[in-house]
């Protein structure tokens, strides 16, 4: 990706700690609400799902779409966000 959003930068730069799911890039109010309702209230829960899918982009995008109806852009943002975080901290 040529440029990344501010949100992405902020997420990737530090440990996620207890950050909410909305702090992941690509996940805004609507998706955040849906995810929270489904039990994915914290960023680390989504990270868990991301890891269970073995960091696979296709599977993760699919899952985002199925679970909360995220579009390709949103899913992609969230994916790259989590991926870079993992590269830095895992």
């Amino acid at each position, binding site marked *: 990706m040529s440029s990344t959003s501010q949100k992405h*930068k902020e997420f990737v730069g530090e440990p996620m700690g207890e950050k909410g799911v909305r702090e992941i890039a690509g996940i805004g109010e609507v998706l955040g609400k849906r995810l929270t309702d489904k*039990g994915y209230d914290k960023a680390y829960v989504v990270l868990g799902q991301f890891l269970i899918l073995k960091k696979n982009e296709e599977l993760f995008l699919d899952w985002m779409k199925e679970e909360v109806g995220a579009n390709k852009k949103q899913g992609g943002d969230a994916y790259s966000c989590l991926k870079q975080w993992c590269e830095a901290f895992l």
Partner: protein
Amino acid sequence: MTEIPESIAKLTNDELRKQLIKVGIQPVPLTPTTKKLYQKKLAGRLGTLTFSEKDPSKEKYDGLQEKTSAELSSHALVKYGTENEENSGDKTAEKKGKIFYAVQVSSNENLFSVEQLIFDDKQSALSFLMKNKDARFKRFLDRNEAKDFVKQPPLVCKGDDQTTTESKAVGSEKPNNFKALKQTDLTKLAQCIEKNDVELFNTFVWGNPRYLISAGDAPVLLKPNVRYNALHIASKFNRPNIVEKLLAILQEPAFHELMYASNSACTKVDENILTQRIDRIVDLYLNTPEKGFYETPLHIACKFGFVDVVIELSSHPLCCKTMKNKFDQTPSDVICGRRKDPSAKSQIESFFRDQYFVPLVRSHDNSMPPSVGKLLTTGDISHGSLDLPRDSDDPTAPVLVVNALAGPMASQEAKEMQRSWTTPDKKGICGRRFRDIRRSDVDRGEERIGRELAKKAQIPWLEYWDFLQNFADFTTDDGLTQLETYLIKQTERKYSPPSSDIEVSVFESSDDSLKELCSQMGDVSVDENVSKTGTTCKHYDNIAKEHESVTKSRGLYSVTSTPTNTRTPHTPLMENKTSPNNVTSKEKQLFFLRETLIKVRKEQMFRLSENLSTGNSTETSTRHHPNMTPPLQKMSSSYISVNAPVSNSDVTGDLSSKISDLACNEKESSSDNGSIRSLPKSSEGSSDDSSDLKRLLPAFNHSGNTTTPLTQYSNDNFHSKLTVYLTGDEPSKIDRDVILAISDTEISAAKYPHVWTWMKSVLSYSEDDRLKWSTPKSTIRRGVSSFPTPLGTPLKFAWPASPLAKTRHTPLKSLQNTELF
């Protein structure tokens, strides 16, 4: 799994989630991996599933885990062994045929035959290696090659041995006494910072300094993946207390001595090295960037808008405010960048602006009048360019030193302060008072004015105290702690510990009697006194009655019957509202009262001075011996404190206005050398009058009491014997100065017992007597020989203390040398 009822098993994800919410389980992610677990949980909650004592499934799970972990470890072992082989790159050999593992043992051990040292499988070779540490093994495809290898004399890595012995010889440093910490320990410390548990933090760190200082003399990374040190974490979680504590501990020489005690057990750590070490580690803590954004703790605190943490960090002289992060931003660029409401933004920004200080410059021997110096900036002070320029080349010219500092503040404020300090408002009462203070107090006058101005503007204030050899502000806890330690030292110097105990007990008892006195004084009953004392007293009592009525009519005091606070830390303040009614007839009576009182006092003085054994004070013996008045003034001070609730607003008012008034009075009275003080006839007459009145009222009561059994207290001179004063056994002007500096700060007897005791005894002298105390010679600043010592802890605002202390003596020292020639 068959135990899960069908009704639950059939539920779809959404239904199952709803059911779970119904039984009180927050929404959970339902995936193929989690679904069954939550189904079971739901079943358990609904009571359809009966759990046995020990959950069988869980047991099974545990067993499984154990098994896998065992497998894993053995796997790891194998992997460890094979690493070398894989590196050698003949993976294909494995497929081709049998592999031999030849083990080579050191030559002097011929315990094993060649055959014994060749193994068919790696496991046994490895287990053999475990028993023989020196052995090494290699993999062969051919048995003969393996045999050759075994027979070969082993290559002894002599280099290794040599280096180890060498390093031992060179590095004579013994290993640190404290055990190295594992990541789990560090995580515990990180958690304790996150939870803001200062106590626990303290015990952790003092228990093992390696929690904070790593083997490389650098900050320990508590979160290595992000390279956060303790300060990063504390900043991120908004823990100003931890930040303060951490910086204090790091600057504590004792902490470093603890850390490096083993290195130099016999020789004491060189002071220079110690300060260098401290500076280095504090610098590293404050200015090391973390891994994510390359941000310093100050960046982090600014970003999240944590005002308190920013104060703590930015007030430290070593904190670099211009560090840049990954995106080329300084801390001031990112203020409140991650906070929704920017309310704290302007406040934090103010910490980044240049801060100004207003200094007061004196010559070291006080031979020239003090002057308010030109403004200093933070940079001036932290860079140590506080040495003042000398006006002339004359070596005999006095050395100029900064005696007091107000600040930090914005430039506008600083200019304002400078102006009002040098040219006080001439019209107002304020101006008059300042003028009086300036004239009456050569040693501390300017400081007193500055102190008051700073207090009014709520600006931190620091002034130099010679006896402490340091800067202090006695209205703060820090300053009081310094005073307390000083007094403890003085007491120790004077007494052995048991006698100091006695001292305390004496004061406790006297405190009780004080209360008694106060309560007696509170309900001044004419009859009682009449019966006890003679006719003369009767006379006084009549006057007292009138006096009381005077005070009542003026509405200035109400004589309360219960002393609310006998050990009040307030200095007796006599500032009063000027009452409009002018009672001339009463004043006449007062005049008379005063006359008679002074007579009585004189008589007492004669009597007492005969008993006095230690009448060596030269200055004060002329008229009022300080030792004769204590009980009287004790009463007066406590009496005023009784009145404190009534005139509270006045009490908290200007202290020095009162002092200056008194100073005026004092001058007047001492100049005419008579015993009768002329009544002030100035425009502020009524105010002055009332303060006189106030002094007289307790004095009167005292005169009534001299003939009662309470006389024992008028006879004691334990002040001179038991109390320690700041400059020795005699009270001096410094005591008064410090009392003025303390002003109306609350001092708890529990926290500062020595300060409290000292204050009580100083306050037991009358204002008049206190004004007469002379300036001891030692107060003349021996600018050259007395170096202020840096404070152990950074003061939140008043941090210039330490850089000042550092910079001060260097120029002076050089000057001294020039003077000698």
